[in-house]
């Protein structure tokens, strides 16, 4: 199991929890497990093609998964993931 920290704007969808537990052998599976547990999060995290939206950043410990193996980054028992949205606009 992996702990996943949830940013403030998405906590409404996790019953107010700032941290949830997810399962999955890699980051992609953990994120799918997250939206299985909290289905109303899906439209905010995934686009119509089933891809994570561009504002979703995931950190494993201190490292952005983009600098690791992306969504295929393997997870081990006790790992800690953090979801941080890119805040952007124009």
């Amino acid at each position: 199991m992996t702990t996943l920290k949830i940013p403030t704007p998405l906590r409404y969808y996790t019953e107010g929890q700032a941290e949830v537990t997810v399962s999955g052998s890699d980051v992609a599976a953990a994120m799918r497990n997250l939206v299985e547990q909290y289905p109303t999060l899906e439209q905010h995290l995934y686009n119509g093609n089933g891809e994570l939206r561009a504002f979703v950043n995931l950190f494993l410990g201190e490292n952005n998964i983009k600098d690791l193996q992306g969504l295929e980054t393997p997870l081990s028992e006790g790992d800690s993931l953090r979801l941080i949205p890119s805040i952007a606009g124009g």
Partner: protein
Amino acid sequence: MSLVISEEILGQIYAHGEEAYPEEGAGFLLGYDDEQRHVAQIFVTENAREDEARHNRYLVTPQEYLQAEIAAELLGLSLIGVFHSHPDHPNRPSEFDREWAQPFFSYIITSVNAGKAVESRSWRLAENRSIFEEEQIEIEGIEG
């Protein structure tokens, strides 16, 4: 739910938009919700977009997001939204704003025309993400 903000804090948002002009300026709204949403403080951020894009785009790095979230928690507040300026453009959200918007957050947009902040409006993303809906701003300290 309307957004309650003091004249003083709105003035800080105006000032930040004017300082950033002709580029976009941005930051976070810290506050709390009861029957209404209250802005208690702002957290100013750097515009992390590349030089040539800052006139019509803003970006807050994940590191600054985290700093703002921690600052809010230390103050017993929450991140309740984002403010940014639209230099020489109306204070309505762009399509780009909508694509990148977070649910739950209030988005205050301030028009800065020829270097002078003129008006702010606040917007919230609809649950199905299709549109932004305007939220009333109530300015404390102004009668009526």
